[in-house]
C-alpha cells in the first residue's frame, strides 16, 4: 500500500476494509508533516490531539457509526474556519491568539463524516491575496518549486495536498482562492455554488462571494467531500438546500454529447502562451472523449475585476470592522483612549494588503461615491450573471484557464497589488455570478509548473463539473504527477 499516492477515497476504502487503521493513516500524515512542512510551511497549527481523534474515529468506524467513504482520512482545514478550541488565525496577527468557542458548520459536517483534522492551513491574511505571502506566519511555498508561491489565498491547503501532508483540505474561495492555488499546485479543487455549503463559522472576507470547498488529489475525492458538506444550514440565511453531489454519478459520468463552451475573451492579452496551449489541449482531449467544444464571446469579462474589487473591498471593510481590540484579537498594551484603542489595534493587527482593501472599501461606500462604485458594481454583477445564464442555455460546461500564469516567484507580485489583482481575471466573475467551478490539473508549463483548467457549471451542477473532471482524469494522469524530490529528502 503506497499511502503517498493514494487518494482520500482509496485510503477511506482501505480503512473500512481494515487494511490500515485510521491511527496508522494519521501517523503517516504526521510523519509527512514533520518531513515536509518545514520546507513548505503549509500548516499554521498542527493539532495536538490527532492520534486520540484517530483512535476515536477508528472505534466508531469499527462499530459502524461512521460510514462515510472518507471516515478516518486525515485532512487539513484552512485557518479561516472556526474549530472550537483550536487557534483560528486567518493568517493574521489580529487573530494570532484567537480560539473560537464554536465550530464552523462545514467543519462540523466533515467531522460527522469521521474526518481526522490534522490542523489549520496557512493562507493570505483574511483570505486577501493570491499568493499566501501576506500571512503573519510567513509565506507558504509551492511544493513544485519552493521558490514559487503556491497561489492563494488557500495556498496552505493546496500545498499541503500537493506535498502529501494531508489527503484533502477544506479551502475557501472568494475570487479564486481555491481554484488558483489548486492550479498552481497541481491539485483538484472546486468552489461549489454560492449557498450550497454553509458559511457559518467561516471568517468572513466578502460575504456575498465567500464559499467553502475542497482541494484534493482528484475530482472523485472532491465529490466525496462535497457530498458531506453541501447541506442546508439554518445558521446561514443564504444557504440553500441542494441535491448535493452524487458520487456515483460523478464516477460514471460520460462527457459524450456534452456541450462545452470556451469564452474567447478568456484567451486574450495577458494569458501566458504555455497556459493557453495547455488548456486548449485539454479542450481537445474532452472533444476526443465525445464532447462538443465551441467558442463564444463574453465581452463582460473585462469588467469582472473592477466589479469584484469594489464589492469585495466594500464588504471586507465592513466585515473586518469588528476587529477592534475589545472582544477578541490583538490589542496593544497601553492605549490612551477609545480612538487610540481602535486605531492601534487595527494598525498593528492588520497587514498592508488588509489595510489597503479596508481603505478601498471605505472609499467605494463613502457618501457621495456609493452610486458610482458600489451600486454600479452590483449592476455589473447582474450583467455578468445574465451573461452566464445565456451561456448555460447553450452549454453544459464552460472551460477556460484558471489563471493567466503558472505560479510566480515569491515576492514577484507583492510590491504591485494591481498586478496581483489582474491575475484574478478568470476566477472572480464566477464568484460574482455565484456559480460552481473547479480547477483540474491539465499539464505543465515549460518550467515544469502545473497548469489547471477551469470547468464552470451552471448553478448546482457540481456533479457535471466533477463528472467531466473525473472522466478527464480517467484518460490523463496530470493529477497523479507529484513534485520531484518529495520522496528523497
Amino acid at each position, binding site marked *: 500500500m503506497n499511502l503517498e499516492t493514494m487518494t482520500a477515497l482509496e485510503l477511506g476504502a482501505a480503512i473500512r476494509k481494515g487494511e490500515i487503521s485510521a491511527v496508522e493513516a494519521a501517523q503517516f500524515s504526521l510523519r509527512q508533516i514533520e518531513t515536509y512542512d518545514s520546507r513548505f510551511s503549509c500548516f499554521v497549527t498542527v493539532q495536538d490531539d490527532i492520534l486520540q481523534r484517530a483512535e476515536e474515529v477508528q472505534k466508531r468506524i469499527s462499530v459502524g457509526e461512521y460510514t462515510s467513504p472518507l471516515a478516518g482520512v486525515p485532512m487539513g482545514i484552512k485557518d479561516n474556519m472556526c474549530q472550537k478550541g483550536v487557534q483560528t488565525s486567518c493568517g493574521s496577527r489580529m487573530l494570532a*491568539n*484567537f*480560539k473560537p*468557542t464554536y465550530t464552523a458548520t462545514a467543519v462540523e459536517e466533515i467531522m460527522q463524516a469521521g474526518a481526522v483534522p490534522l490542523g489549520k492551513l496557512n493562507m493570505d491574511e483574511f483570505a486577501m491575496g493570491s499568493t499566501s505571502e501576506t500571512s503573519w506566519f510567513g509565506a507558504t511555498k509551492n511544493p513544485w518549486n519552493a521558490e514559487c508561491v503556491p497561489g492563494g489565498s488557500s495556498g496552505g491547503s493546496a500545498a499541503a495536498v500537493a506535498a502529501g501532508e494531508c489527503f484533502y483540505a477544506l479551502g475557501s474561495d472568494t475570487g479564486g482562492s481555491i481554484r488558483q492555488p489548486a492550479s498552481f499546485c497541481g491539485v483538484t479543487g472546486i468552489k461549489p*455554488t*454560492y*449557498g450550497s455549503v454553509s458559511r457559518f463559522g467561516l471568517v468572513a472576507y466578502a460575504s*456575498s462571494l465567500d464559499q467553502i470547498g475542497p482541494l484534493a488529489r482528484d475530482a472523485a475525492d472532491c465529490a466525496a467531500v462535497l457530498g458531506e458538506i453541501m447541506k442546508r444550514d*439554518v445558521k446561514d*440565511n*443564504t444557504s*440553500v438546500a441542494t441535491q448535493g453531489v452524487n458520487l456515483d454519478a460523478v464516477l460514471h459520468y460520460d462527457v459524450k454529447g456534452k456541450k462545452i463552451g470556451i469564452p474567447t475573451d478568456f484567451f486574450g492579452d495577458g494569458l501566458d502562451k504555455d497556459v493557453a496551449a495547455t488548456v486548449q489541449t485539454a479542450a481537445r482531449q474532452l472533444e476526443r472523449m465525445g464532447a462538443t467544444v465551441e467558442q463564444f464571446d463574453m465581452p*463582460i469579462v473585462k*469588467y469582472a475585476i*473592477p466589479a469584484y474589487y*469594489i464589492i469585495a473591498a466594500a464588504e471586507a*471593510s465592513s466585515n473586518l*470592522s469588528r476587529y477592534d481590540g*475589545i*472582544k*477578541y*484579537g*490583538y*490589542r496593544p498594551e497601553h*492605549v*490612551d*483612549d*477609545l*480612538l487610540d*484603542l*481602535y*486605531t*492601534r489595534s*487595527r*494598525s498593528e493587527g*492588520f497587514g*498592508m494588503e488588509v*489595510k*489597503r482593501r*479596508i*481603505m*478601498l*472599501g471605505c*472609499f467605494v461606500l*463613502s457618501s457621495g461615491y456609493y452610486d*458610482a*462604485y458600489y*451600486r454600479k458594481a*452590483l*449592476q455589473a*454583477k*447582474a*450583467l455578468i*450573471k445574465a451573461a452566464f445564464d445565456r451561456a448555460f442555455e447553450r452549454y453544459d460546461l464552460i472551460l477556460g484557464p484558471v489563471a493567466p500564469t503558472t505560479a510566480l516567484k515569491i515576492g514577484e507580485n507583492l510590491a504591485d*497589488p*494591481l498586478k496581483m*489583482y489582474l491575475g484574478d481575471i478568470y476566477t472572480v466573475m464566477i464568484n*460574482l*455570478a455565484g456559480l460552481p467551478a473547479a480547477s483540474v490539473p491539465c499539464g505543465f508549463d515549460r518550467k515544469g509548473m502545473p497548469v489547471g483548467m477551469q470547468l464552470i457549471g451552471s*448553478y448546482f451542477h457540481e456533479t457535471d463539473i466533477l463528472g467531466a473532471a473525473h472522466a478527464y482524469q480517467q484518460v490523463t494522469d496530470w493529477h497523479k504527477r507529484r513534485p520531484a524530490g518529495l520522496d528523497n529528502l
Partner: protein
Amino acid sequence: MMITDELVTYLEALGRIRLPEESRAKAQRDLQEILQYIDTLSELDTEGIEPLSHALPLTNVMREDEVQPSIPPEEVLANAPVRKDNYFLVPRSFE
C-alpha cells in the same frame, strides 16, 4: 478620481487604521492605480439594470422565535484581551 493625501487621511479615519509613515506615499500611488483601473467600470452601460445583491433568488428564510441557550460568560469573554469581572473593558467612553 484623484487620491489625495487628504483622502488617504480620511479613509484611514473611516477605517480606524493608520498607515506606517514610510509606506504612505506608496500606498497612495497603489490606491490611485487600483482606482484608475476600477474606474474602467464607468464605461460599462448599466442603464436600467437592477443592482444584484444576491446571486440566487432566495427570499423569506427565517427562524422560529424559540429560545436557545446562551453561552456561559466564561466563553463570551474567553478571548477578551482585557476584562473586568464579567465585563469587557474599554477606555472611558462617556462624554
